[in-house]
């Protein structure tokens, strides 16, 4: 069964139709990329899947369950985690504290006023694991707000990962990064997908990243569906070339 089925969703902002009747099906283990020019509606589409907005029309089915009317936090509990186009972290807390909060919430301990030594040890171990995995070992006790853009992004991705999601949505994970940082984030995503068997949907502008990572690509333009297919199919698609790739070249 498909993990995520988005069925004919639309979102209006006044007279603007930011997302116009879009459908998308994501299979377990897939890495899907969404591309399209600025203002195409990609972020809004993510916002509909994660509950930031409710769609004007259409349904969202996650793992067989209709989540269209669920609040954001509940969708997280169902297993949908995300990062944002502009990095969202807890800037005055350290990397370790950022991850710790995430791990505690994921372990169902968010309302606890007290932790046993065993729980505490388990949480610390898991946080260390995430720090290692995100390549943040040397910076764990620094305030996230002081770190480089790339490290903040890595922290945000690891926070989402700490939730043990079944679907991870990444909104332009390499936006505004240099080549080295882009490479590192790309490698991280690749590991999560290949080794962690995680289902990922990512919005990305950097075509090298998209063609390197994606199993399938969906293209949006001005809120409308333009094309969908494997990377070679998209590269060969005439409509995509005129609307988007041609523009970039």
């Amino acid at each position: 069964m498909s993990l995520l089925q988005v069925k004919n969703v639309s979102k209006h902002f006044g007279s603007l139709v930011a997302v116009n009747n879009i459908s998308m099906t994501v299979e377990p283990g897939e890495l899907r990329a969404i591309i399209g020019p600025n203002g195409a509606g990609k972020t809004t589409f993510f916002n509909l899947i994660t509950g930031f907005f409710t769609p004007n029309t259409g349904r969202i089915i996650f793992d067989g369950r209709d989540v269209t009317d669920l609040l954001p936090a509940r969708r997280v509990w169902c297993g949908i985690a995300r990062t944002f186009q502009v990095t969202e972290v807890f800037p005055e807390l350290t990397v370790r504290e950022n991850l710790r909060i995430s791990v505690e919430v994921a372990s169902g301990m968010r309302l606890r006023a007290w932790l046993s030594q065993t729980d505490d040890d388990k949480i610390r171990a898991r946080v260390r694991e995430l720090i290692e995995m995100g390549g943040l070992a040397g910076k764990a006790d620094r305030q996230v707000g002081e770190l480089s853009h790339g490290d903040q992004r890595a922290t945000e991705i690891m926070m989402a990962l700490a939730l043990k999601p079944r679907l991870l949505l990444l909104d332009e994970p390499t936006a505004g990064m240099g080549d080295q940082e882009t490479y590192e984030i790309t490698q991280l995503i690749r590991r999560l997908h290949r080794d962690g068997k995680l289902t990922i949907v990512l919005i990305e502008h950097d075509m090298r990243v998209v063609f390197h990572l994606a199993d399938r690509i969906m293209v949006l333009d001005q809120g409308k569906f333009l094309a969908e297919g494997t990377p070679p199919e998209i590269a060969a698609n005439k409509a995509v070339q005129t609307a988007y790739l041609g523009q970039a070249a």
Partner: protein
Amino acid sequence: MKQLLKLEPRRKVAALAAIWAALMAAPFWMPLLGGYTALGTRVLVLGLAAMSVNFLLGFTGVLSFGHAAWFGIGAYGCGMILKYIALSTPLGILAGTLAGGIAGAVLGALIVRRRGVYFAMVTIAFGQVFYYIAFQWSSVTGGDDGLRPFYRQPLHLGVATLDILNNAVAFYYFVLVCFALAVAAMAFILRSPFGRTMLAIRENERRARFLGIPVELHIWIAFTLSCFFMAYAGSLYALVNNFADPRGLHYSQSGDFVMMAVMGGMRSFWGPLLGAVVFVVFQDYVSSITINWQIFIGFLFVLVVLFFPRGILGAIRRTVVAS
């Protein structure tokens, strides 16, 4: 304790020890500086109230401008027990704390969806409602004159009786114990997983929500806890004065608490206590020189906010860390 010493940076433990030593020895060193014990008692109670406001403001990032309401309800609750129902200090404190805390919990449920200025406005509005009730309902509350007479009662401790009414030093230590219990509870909560979700909401509400924290529920719990602490401080304040004043519910009183918290340093746990020290000392000394003491404290407040945006304690801490 051993573990605490190991985990905490030594400087922090030293600062903590210094604070408690100063508080415990206050009745001895205060007279040397021209103070008197009752002044110390007032600082503890107002400091606790400012710390309760800051529990919400500094650690959840939510500004309530009506917290004097819970403080006042605590004071009236405690006073009414002593005046009308039973001559028992602990019962008065318990009743005041519950009354203010529960009222806060109910109101909190109605307003947790508001944010920022809107939240502050709604809290002012509701706070004023309680102020007018206290002011108008003279037959029960004493109206403009306040609630009196009632007196804090001696404490029966099984073997001995502690006369907290006439012995100012005994009363100071009683309030210090009450203060310590509340402060320990606050510190405990702030170090728990729940406390960390408060920080998460303060730091970035959107991120918190999309980590799966139901933000409204957590703000409501933090608000309610803060109201209970506030009402507890209010109950103690009724005992300090043997009197409950309707002005204690007024929004200007809420403003004073916020001012203490901001002046002392709202990102630091102890900052609001320091703010209360400055406030009470100013009030006591400057008001004996001029009736316009509030202008001076207002001026001081502006200076602190301009030059030490993290408050007095924040500035001290920065200097210590830098050295």
